């Protein structure tokens, strides 16, 4: 019996625990600053967001990512990257040395940066979690020439041209000429990519998803990439990617205070509906509320005086932003429409097929005879605001390849620091 009670409690706890995260969402940084204070380095490495419900939770989006690394704590971590030569057996590029490369890029590959964020957050009693994202788009940049997403297939043919040497001799050159479709679907010349595929970060996930790619590059670049791998240079000039995360961030529900002079307000409404032959359509009603929301001069000429609550608790008659102003017009309409207007809607049978209704002035004597100003509070929310954050993904700290295993560069302290050693 006792056991079953306990397990009921556990299930309840589990349920509440499971329900909360579904409601909780990142807050837009313009509305709520992320909790805690962080070093310049952490703010440089991450975009941070507050949570709508849990004051001790910080969401992060890494600004820089690198190759995914396995066994980071071992003396020889394994980078998820491979690069090799490939000689096509037939076709236009037969016998030329192409480069085939592939790997997995991870936004949280800089374990030291993540550790720094974790330490600074934990010191302030805060938890960290990757930000939930609505959608993600990864763009690859190869030799600063092409922005590629998804899949690329190149069409190659042989181009012939004649070169005249300074001494007057002429020679015919036969060079592969490749073309690739750009993002707009037009063919453009390419001397970089032969084939390219990538698996992008999924939508409706979190900002720590890996991105996998495979590419085959034209012979022009093979020797350059061999050099890069020999010296352990970074690939920034050759291949980099950017993932653009779209986060649907909540905004604050704000409060506004209305001081209403009903007699004056009804005068306005009466004049307005009379002008529209006592039959306003919905959009005209919206326009009426927009007009009274922008009316300057207090309750007597306008009928209404709106004050907005500021973050510091004071009241002002200036709307904090455009988005807030639109929200307040909607909120005004919701709360005052019933008092001022009567909605008339034709009903055809059980289901109305009438798309619109008409509004006429309501004979609301209870309010019209009120001689005092009435003060009302309304709440408004501009709705979720999109927040974009980018992660730049780069390849570096690798050596070898082209017939040798690709090794993580443990000689360099910057690379060692990245895997937390």
């Amino acid at each position, binding site marked *: 019996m006792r056991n079953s009670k306990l397990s009921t409690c556990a299930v309840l706890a589990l349920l509440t625990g499971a329900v909360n995260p579904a409601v909780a969402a990142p807050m837009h*940084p313009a509305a709520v*600053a992320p909790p805690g204070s962080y*070093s*310049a*380095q952490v*703010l*440089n490495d991450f975009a941070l967001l507050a949570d709508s419900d849990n004051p001790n939770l910080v969401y992060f989006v890494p600004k820089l990512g690198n190759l995914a690394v396995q066994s980071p704590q071992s003396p020889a971590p394994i980078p998820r990257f491979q690069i090799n030569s490939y000689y096509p057996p037939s076709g236009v590029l037969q016998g*030329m*040395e192409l480069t085939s490369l592939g790997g997995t890029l991870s936004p949280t590959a800089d374990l030291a940066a993540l550790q720094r964020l974790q330490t600074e957050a934990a010191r302030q009693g805060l938890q960290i979690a990757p930000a939930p994202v609505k959608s993600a788009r990864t763009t690859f940049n190869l*030799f*600063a020439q092409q922005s590629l997403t998804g899949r690329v297939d190149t069409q190659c043919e*042989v181009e012939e*041209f004649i*070169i*005249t*040497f*300074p001494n007057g001799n002429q*020679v*015919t*050159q*036969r*060079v*592969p000429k490749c073309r690739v479709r750009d993002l707009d679907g037009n063919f453009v010349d390419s*001397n970089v990519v032969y084939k390219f595929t990538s698996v992008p970060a999924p939508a409706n996930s979190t900002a720590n998803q890996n991105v996998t790619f495979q590419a085959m590059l*034209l*012979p*022009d*670049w*093979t*020797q*350059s990439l*061999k*050099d890069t791998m020999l*010296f352990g*240079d*970074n*690939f*920034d*000039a050759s291949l980099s990617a950017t993932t653009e995360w779209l986060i649907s961030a909540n905004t604050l529900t704000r409060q506004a205070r209305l001081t209403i002079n009903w007699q004056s307000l009804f005068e306005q409404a009466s004049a307005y509906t009379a002008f529209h032959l006592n039959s306003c359509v919905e959009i005209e009603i919206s326009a009426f509320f927009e007009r009274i929301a922008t009316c300057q001069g207090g309750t007597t000429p306008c009928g209404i005086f709106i004050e907005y609550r500021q973050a510091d608790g004071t009241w002002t008659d200036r709307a904090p932003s455009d988005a807030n102003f639109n929200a307040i017009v909607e909120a005004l309409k919701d709360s005052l429409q019933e008092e001022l207007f009567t909605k008339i809607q034709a009903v055809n049978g059980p289901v109305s097929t009438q798309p619109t209704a008409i509004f006429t002035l309501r004979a609301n004597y209870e309010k019209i005879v009120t001689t005092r100003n009435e003060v009302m509070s309304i709440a408004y929310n501009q709705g979720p605001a999109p927040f974009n954050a980018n992660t730049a993904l780069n390849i*570096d700290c690798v050596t070898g390849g082209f017939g040798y295993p690709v090794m993580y560069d443990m*000689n*360099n*302290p*910057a690379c060692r*620091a990245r895997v937390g050693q």
Partner: protein
Amino acid sequence: MSAYRILASALVCLCSAVALVSQPASAATPGLTLDYARTLEQSSMVFVPYEGQNRGPVYYTQYTQVPTGTSSVGTLRRIIVNLRPSAHIQELYIPFVNQHGIIDVSASPLPAHGECQPTQGIKDLLSFMPANYQPTILTAGYPVACSLSLYFPVEYEAAVRDYIGTRPVIVLDATVPLCEPTSPRLSVNAINEALRTAGVLQVSQTGVWTGNYWDLLYESVRLTQTRPQLFVTQDPREGWQVYMQLFQLDAVAETATMSSADAQQSIYMCIPKPLHIRFGQEVMP
């Protein structure tokens, strides 16, 4: 240094500060600042760490041009010439970073602080190539400062390799703005304390400094005359301007406020020491 110049600049500063205050307060983006006092220079490498860290950019004063192997593109041949730091080729870089525990942030001086060009000599050598295959500078990253792409017919391979082996093919000209390691530091706290003694500023429990801004203005300008050493710069006006910028002014209440974070700063008053990086400068006849 005449007093009226200081007062005139005080008014300019005040007006601009008031203009700043009237805008919505946005969260300041904390930047990483370089700690010039800990600059390390060793065999053509210059490392400047960020404040409070062992991370920072490593710049190089000497570069070497290194050609790649030859690629075959149809009947054409291609070589890319990389401008690589000499310290990397002489294998001095890894011992240097390991010895000092340097975390290199891989900052390239290009394209922000300079540019690369092919030399006239190599352009002349390959001037017969069609437009698409002319010598071209490629974007490079780090540590390679820049790369030059050369296409040529197979008959020219020996000539091109000879040329690269004997003469520069890339001109690099970059100037990185750095400061002297001995640049003086302006101690904000020392000036605040002097003004507190003068009865102009008060400090709260949380370390926020406030005071009437007319009094602050008058006393701080007086301080530039009576104790110019507090403002560390040759012309105390420069240090004074930097100091005054740290205050948030409230035009209605006539108060000036400095955050506790700003009050703890000690700001570099930069004595410029630009780092010139040159390669392949052709001698003008």
